[in-house]
């Protein structure tokens, strides 16, 4: 009984860390441009399809195909910035957020035209057998995903808080004009954020889709990651780990214990209930930047 509980909790936490990895794409773009990217889920799907294209369709070995897919994802990020956002420097953030909604529709269309609506098999990157420790069963892909998420969070936290490039990206997000006046290239900063956002989404796709099937509907993971991003606060990368674990464990336990009682769906709804609650009680999330207003 207890072991079941621990199992559900651990699996929930690992799933939560996958959400955190996807949410990291949101946060990186938000930290650098204050733009909330509604097309994050589509970027995951695109990253997934790029890997499918390289490995399954083109038949490249995984060791070549997957890194190549990451490079292509980076190119997509750069193109998105060049085509849509380079012209919007100095414009309102609202305008840019609206562009991401357009991007959502556009990317979905591109994926459908390029790869079709069929369900495709995603390469098996991580072993399908779960890791068995005593009576605990842990899916290998989620375990690896958890490790990658923690590493990515540590790396990105260090990057944004300690390195010059990371700090200049934060400066761009805070104030385009001040960043310009200090000689920071706003366009380059935002381009880098989109490249990073696309690469992280592709990493999320590997963990999420390894050994599963893929079609355009996989973009729902983007919205599933939303509660994690908002609970952490949209600026906090380290906070995503804790928020991911909280949301994941609650979802895992609710699915195991509450769903059978009410006939399902509690597990999927609860994260969004948490999201609404956090928006009411603490709109900046657990670790997000509060508005600083001097009076």
């Amino acid at each position: 009984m207890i072991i079941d509980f621990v199992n559900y909790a651990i699996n929930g936490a690992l799933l939560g860390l996958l959400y955190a990895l996807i949410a990291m794409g949101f946060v990186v773009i938000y930290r650098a441009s204050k733009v909330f990217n509604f097309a994050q889920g589509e970027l995951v799907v695109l990253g997934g399809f790029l890997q499918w294209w390289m490995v399954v369709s083109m038949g490249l070995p995984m060791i070549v195909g997957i890194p190549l897919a990451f490079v292509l994802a980076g190119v997509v990020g750069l193109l998105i910035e060049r085509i849509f956002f380079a012209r919007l420097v100095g414009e309102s953030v609202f305008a840019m957020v609206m562009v991401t909604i357009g991007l959502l529709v556009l990317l979905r269309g591109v994926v459908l035209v390029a790869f079709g609506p069929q369900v495709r098999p995603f390469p098996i990157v991580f072993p399908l057998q779960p890791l068995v420790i005593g009576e605990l069963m842990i899916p290998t892909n989620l375990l690896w995903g958890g490790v990658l998420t923690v590493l990515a969070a540590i790396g990105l936290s260090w990057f944004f808080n300690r390195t010059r490039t990371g700090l200049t990206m934060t400066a761009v997000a805070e104030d385009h004009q001040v960043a310009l006046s200090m000689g920071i290239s706003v366009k380059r900063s935002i381009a880098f954020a989109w490249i990073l956002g696309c690469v992280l989404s592709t990493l999320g796709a590997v963990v999420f889709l390894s050994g599963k099937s893929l079609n355009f509907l996989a973009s729902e993971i983007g919205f599933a990651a939303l509660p994690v991003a908002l609970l952490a606060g949209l600026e906090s990368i380290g906070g995503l780990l804790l928020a991911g674990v909280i949301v994941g464990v609650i979802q895992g336990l609710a699915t195991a214990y509450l769903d059978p009682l009410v006939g399902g769906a509690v597990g999927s709804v609860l994260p969004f209930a948490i999201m609404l609650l956090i928006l009411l009680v603490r709109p900046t999330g657990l670790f997000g930047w509060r508005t600083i207003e001097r009076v």
Partner: protein
Amino acid sequence: MLVLNNVEVMYSEVILALKGITLAVQPGTCVAILGGNGAGKSTTLKAVSGTIESEDGEVSGGSITFEGERIDGLDPAEVVRRGLVHVMEGRRVLRHLTAEQNLIVGGHLAPGAAELRRRLDRVFSFIPPLGGLRERTAGYLSGGEQQMLVIGRAMMAVPKIMLIDEPSLGLAPMMVQDVFALLARLKAEGTTLLVVEQNSRVALELADHGYVMENGRVVLEGTADELRRNEDVREFYLGMTAEGERKSYREVKHYRRRKRWLG
């Protein structure tokens, strides 16, 4: 060093904000631009630093040269690389970063980590109060501390000329003195300054030369001494009568309504 020749600036392709500004800044000096709200002072600085582009403005006529080379139309990043740094109006610190992180952002073009560290040390020794504020979030600093921080941040780029917009804005008189004392030390150290100010009294104490702007034009120029002695400046900007007495605010307003420069 910095020469603006008949510069015109247009916003959104319709609003002519600067109508032919000509001014020159010699190396090692401080030049003040004085004038009321909407005179075009800040626009002049933004035209020089190139940041006007982000406000849908452009230099539509004339030329801006720095050390003999045209800089109008250059990318703002290139302008900073050439040694001009713009300290914007309103103490625009990066509010969520610490004071030290603000400074690091200012020195982001420094070649190598050792040079960045050296510049940080220089700023902390030049502006000692900042040393105690390293880890403090910039948004929570006092107005005076924020003004010192943005000047320190500009120093991190080791500029040849610093363009400073309204350093006294919204500060207590004591803080204004501290900030201007800091600028005086900066000037003594060899940094050229172009200061935009509404507080003409303190600005003319620091400056060697001054320009008075109104309605997008320079209406008066001269050495700081000449401007301090100029009857119109005394009346309209220093609030004094010809005899050196301070005028009451009501009288100053009365004159302002009637004033007409011979542009």
